[in-house]
């Protein structure tokens, strides 16, 4: 697969603060790449360097195998941290301005406005928009030049549950078109729901990178205890079982996609096993994430 982005030894210090330290990373075409890390772990700073607004202390990166220039940025759609627009301009005028800067065809404007469902508010001033509309306009602007790579930084930050769902739907819709997406988030859930690959940053250091485990994706881990000898065997017979771990006398069962803890409970009951303890645990990636952060 074609390498879209390769980062080598990228470092940024703000005075004494080591915001990003020696990050090495590759993003391939078609990946939905999650950059996961707690607040202040250096996600925005990394993306800022990639988009030319933060000058790296050392290290380098290449977009599409080329040294970065402002011309390359025109081919990438990016929203860092917050949507940024001229408040006194309408959504339409803001996009017209962005089209001029990106030197792309303004004929795309109605298309992207339609995609983010802002067509009927396009002539209102940006400052009258709700936060969700601002985020959507930012995504529209990022899509304006029909980029092959889209960078989104905490795109659901501060939104209400409905706004969050809308944005995630939108991201999935865009990913389905085969675009490469780099998504920074401190929300594991978000990365898990939309990403194919992810990297974990901790205090500016890259501590993990790899695919989002297919087993863990969208599934649950269930903790089970029961007063029967052959619990292990019964659990193995359950169609939804992916892996089983034994920890301190309880069984940790990770479920396959589409299976819920209720299904397991029902299955056990039908097999004459009554669980004395059955708890749905955190999703596996979260566990993975916390382990990575603890171990690093």
């Amino acid at each position, binding site marked *: 697969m074609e390498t879209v982005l390769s980062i080598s030894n990228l470092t940024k210090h*703000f005075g004494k603060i080591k915001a990003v330290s020696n990050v090495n990373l590759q993003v391939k075409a078609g990946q939905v790449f999650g950059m996961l890390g707690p607040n202040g772990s250096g996600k925005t700073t990394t993306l*800022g360097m990639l*988009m*030319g*607004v*933060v*000058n790296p202390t050392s290290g380098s990166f290449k977009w599409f195998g080329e040294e970065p*220039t*402002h*011309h390359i*940025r*025109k081919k990438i759609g*990016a929203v*860092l941290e*917050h949507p*940024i*627009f*001229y*408040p*006194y*301009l*309408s959504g339409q*005028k803001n996009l*017209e*301005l*962005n089209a*001029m*800067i*990106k*030197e792309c065809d303004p004929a795309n404007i109605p298309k992207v406005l339609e995609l983010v469902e802002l067509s009927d508010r396009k002539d209102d001033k940006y400052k009258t928009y709700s936060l969700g509309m601002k985020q959507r306009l930012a995504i529209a*602007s990022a899509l304006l030049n029909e980029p092959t790579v889209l960078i989104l930084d905490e795109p659901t930050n501060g939104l209400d549950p409905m706004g969050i769902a809308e944005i995630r739907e939108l991201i999935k819709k865009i990913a389905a078109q085969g675009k490469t997406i780099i998504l920074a988030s401190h929300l594991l859930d978000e990365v898990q729901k939309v990403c194919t690959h992810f990297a974990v940053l901790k205090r500016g250091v890259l501590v993990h990178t790899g695919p989002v485990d297919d087993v863990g994706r969208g599934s649950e881990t269930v903790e089970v205890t029961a007063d029967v000898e052959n619990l292990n065997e019964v659990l193995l017979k359950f169609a939804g079982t992916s892996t089983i771990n034994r920890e301190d006398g309880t069984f940790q069962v990770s479920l396959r996609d589409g299976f819920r803890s209720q299904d397991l409970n029902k299955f056990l009951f039908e097999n004459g096993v009554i669980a004395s303890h059955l708890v749905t645990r955190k999703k596996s990636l979260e566990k993975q994430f916390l382990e990575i952060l603890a171990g690093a």
Partner: protein
Amino acid sequence: MLHLLQIDLKKLTSYRTFWVICGLYFVTLAVATASGMEFLKWLARMFEDFGQEINIDRIPLYHFPDVWLNLIWFSGWFKIVLAIMVVISVTNEYSYRTLRQNIIDGMSRAEFVTSKVLTNVLLSIISVAMIFFIGLVTGLIYSPTQAYESILTDVDFFLAYFLEIFFFLSYTLMISVLIQRAGLSIIVVLLSQMIELIITVNINEDIPWLVPYFPMRSLWNLIECPYPRYAFQEIKDYLDPLSFAIVAGWTIVFNLVAYRKIKKSDI
């Protein structure tokens, strides 16, 4: 180049404040420069002796070629209004963080600065065109001589006038980029004349040769006040190449400093 100017104008032309301030500038400039004779007539009516002692029609305020330098020098005072517009246009890019987004969207830092500089050039050219037009019209109305030689005398001062406006807007651009806040930038731009005066007065004793090289002072030397000639004093009615070079030098420095600052900082 034109593309960069279009980008900056796109930001400004839907901005009400831009039209209010530019409107204020060009209307007051036009009214103030064109109404000199009406003002003298009004004085004559108010103070009867005034009109009797000197025939106001004989005051060559708008006579060719005096009209050019008279209007140019007087118009210079109004450039502060344009400077306020520049402060707002530049500091907005910081307070809205749109400078950051412009770079993310694919402008280079040099292009961003160039777009602001080009707007300054345009505002300077419009100022020159307007004063030339007003000078020409008032001159044709009031001037007893309409000879080409006298019309064309001193028009080279329009080059100086262009430089004066562009110099000052460049200075304002630099201050706005360095300070990034509208209020403080406006205060600094307004006070800089005074601060420089305090400095030059103090060093005038010891190192007087340095004084003409100070930026604001060099501006006063470039276009000297022409009115003392009506009190039978000598005035510098030619363009001094050294003054011109000093002002042009400062103008380049201001724009380069603004560029360096934007180039080097994380935004």
